[in-house]
């Protein structure tokens, strides 16, 4: 199925841009006329993915975070957050709740939040090449 609309957003991996990333995605998804709760869920999931890219992907160097948002006819939104950072050696382990390499008071809940706030989460990663996180959520039109 082809998306009916899409957007690309990219920005430097400064942590101050975390707010910009999730706000930009939420602004684009507003055209689906989502409920406040659904939009808030997606905003949170995007924030987790963007933070992962900045804190983990680009822990050693600055880089660019790439976000693609696609909207489909049935109200489904697919948000892909990608970095060209260090990658994740063991994706399965990284997705376990409370697993964190972040230190500094990272709760280790990023993937658990993404999974619970979206319909599905796919992660692909190549060490040394980067990580791509795909968040899928179907937005029911407001009653």
């Amino acid at each position: 199925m082809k998306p009916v609309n899409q957007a690309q957003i990219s920005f430097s991996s400064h942590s101050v841009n975390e707010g910009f990333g999730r706000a930009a995605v939420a602004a684009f998804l507003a055209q689906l006329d989502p409920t406040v709760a659904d939009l808030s869920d997606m905003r949170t999931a995007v924030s987790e993915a963007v933070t992962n890219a900045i804190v983990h992907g680009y822990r050693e160097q600055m880089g660019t975070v790439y976000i693609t948002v696609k909207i489909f006819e049935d109200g489904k939104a697919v948000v892909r957050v990608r970095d060209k950072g260090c990658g994740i050696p063991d994706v399965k382990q990284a997705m376990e709740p409370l697993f964190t390499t972040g230190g500094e008071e990272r709760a280790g809940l990023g993937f658990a939040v993404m999974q619970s706030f979206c319909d599905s989460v796919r992660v692909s990663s190549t060490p040394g090449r980067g990580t791509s996180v795909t968040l899928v959520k179907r937005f029911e039109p407001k009653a």
Partner: protein
Amino acid sequence: MSVQLNYKEGVLTAKLSGEIDHHSAREMREAIDDTAQKLKPYCLRLDFTEVPFMDSSGVGLILGRVRLCGFWRGRVVLCGLSQSLGKMVELAGISSVAAIERRAG
């Protein structure tokens, strides 16, 4: 992002305002800990009334303060959580380590 601190009879209230994410949590943490470590309150009250958004960095912020206050046997109370913040707090199982005051009304 800002933190307003108010100390009264052993209770330190930190009124947080603005979105809480990995970026803003650091400054909030530093502002709270600076004062909390000096005063060692028996209760640290985190007020989320003016927080429209929080990701799991907020969970780290809360759990870190629970740990800190544990050093002098203080406890942490959360209040003013919106529905979406409540969802995050519930997912993280925070109610087992901090008291949650429900929003009036």
